[in-house]
């Protein structure tokens, strides 16, 4: 139930009281800096966002690191395609290589330029992930939606996002129940059994999702569904001079750093 845990954390974090617009703005500015700047700047963003998430918002370090490991596994999966190159051994042009292997008539090698590229990409990914983690852990989804509504995003988009968000947890709950039911009835025996049960679960999930959809549309009609899904929150946010000062000063420092290291 990783999804549920993430969601609970975002509702209980210590920066919940800050206006969501401010947090999203900070993350947005930093993402732009991370995508346009150099490695030193990206490293600084990683560290600074880490402080916001783990120290200010009090998200456990274990979970913050887990988020990075999970997301970076996708980066690692893409590495062979970025690093490895191959050419016929007799026709290979001379480039600086970090490592090379001869496979039959071919030469498989890692060019030095590819390592540089991966280095650049790695820090850019890290910095972007750090900004994303900040939004994920400190702004509850319902508040992101409210900001999107304030930004005058079409109602159909925010309505769909809201229903999808509700359904994620409804479907997670159903699949968890089905999974437990299968195990309780002696399912999941061996690899083949596991595959068969998983496919059964997927099929059932679809059928039940359709039924839920039908029931929910009746439920919405019973509550007087008009043209769009509108809701209001009671939660009030308060501004914090200390955090505002730190974010503005930090951003200015980062821009200076970028300029100083030759941006």
């Amino acid at each position, binding site marked *: 139930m990783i999804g*549920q845990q993430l*969601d*609970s954390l975002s*509702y209980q974090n210590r920066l919940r009281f800050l206006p969501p617009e401010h947090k999203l703005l900070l993350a947005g500015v930093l993402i732009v800096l991370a995508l346009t700047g150099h490695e030193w700047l990206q490293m600084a963003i990683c560290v600074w966002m880490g402080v916001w998430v783990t120290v200010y918002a009090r998200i456990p370090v274990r979970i913050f690191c887990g988020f990075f490991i999970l997301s970076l596994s996708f980066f690692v999966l893409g590495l062979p395609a970025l690093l490895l190159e191959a050419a016929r051994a007799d026709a290979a042009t001379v480039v600086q290589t970090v490592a090379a292997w001869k496979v039959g008539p071919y030469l498989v090698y890692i060019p030095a330029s590819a390592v540089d590229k991966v280095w650049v990409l790695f820090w850019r990914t890290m910095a972007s992930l750090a900004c994303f983690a900040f939004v994920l852990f400190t702004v*509850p*989804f*319902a508040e992101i*939606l409210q900001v999107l509504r304030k930004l005058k995003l079409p109602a159909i988009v925010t309505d769909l996002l*809201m*229903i999808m*968000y*509700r359904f994620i*947890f*409804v479907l997670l*709950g159903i699949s968890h129940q089905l999974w437990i039911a299968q195990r309780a009835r002696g399912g999941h025996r061996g690899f083949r059994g596991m595959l068969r049960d998983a496919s059964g679960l997927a099929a059932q999930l679809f059928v039940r999702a359709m039924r*839920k959809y039908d*029931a*929910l549309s*009746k*439920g*919405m*009609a*019973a*509550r*007087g*569904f*008009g043209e769009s*899904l*509108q*809701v*209001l*929150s*009671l*939660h009030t946010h308060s501004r914090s001079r200390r955090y505002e000062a730190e974010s503005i000063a930090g951003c200015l420092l980062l821009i200076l750093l970028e300029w100083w290291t030759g941006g």
Partner: protein
Amino acid sequence: MTSWLLEFVDLHYAYPGGRGPVLKGLSLGIPEGKKCALLGRNGCGKSTLFLHGNGIIQPQQGQVLWRGTPLSYKRAALQEMTQKVGLVFQDPEHQLIAGTVAEDISYGLCNRNLPADVIREKVRAVLDAFGMTELADVPIHHLSLGQKRRLALAGVMVLAPELLLLDEPTAYLDRYQTKNLLRELDAIHQNGTTVLMATHDMDIAFEWAEWLCVMDEGRLIFAGEPQEALARKEMLESLHLGLPLIAELWEALPPEWRREAGERIPCSLEELKTRLAVHAAAR
């Protein structure tokens, strides 16, 4: 003559692709200002009937009357009906829409295009009345079933409906939560809302309701005071609804006790206790 708040006249309905009609000429009136219970076994058409109550389903034959006027199935009229008739589903998951508790309660109010301040004020009042103020910003999927039921009820009651329809509201609730729910329903009733609860629990229906309707296989079998229903023991037994525990207990008492303590069957354990105590003192 009793004035019917909502009246169903000769309703027929079959679900498209279903195995035959669910409602087969059902006629039923809901008396204004009473606590009513609709008894029937699972699958007898109670939920389908409720969906007719505020016009979500249009009958294939027959009529639904609100204070004697037939329901209009035009969009604006239906919108108004959903405000007059509040419907609480058996599975609260089917009517909770928004992300957090307070947002969900605000949903019905936002549909009425009220000003934001009024909405916030009403949401706060309802949260307070249902004892959910601390839960205001909790996401819905963090709530327990009992809390979800309360939230579904709060989301409907914030619109102050004239009639409240509840589909099996006590299913899966423990004794404590059931008691709480019945107390909340009593408070709602005292504030002037007519309540109709569908259930198959004879004990709850008999203890709580002032008016009983019994339906079976899409037809109305009985409507009247609870005591009248108990007098027709064979009917209840032939429908496999059984007698309430308290009535069975009463039957098991020595006949002279019953005669001396008054023939009327007590509705609740409390009433039985007091009457027996009075009887014992008299002897």
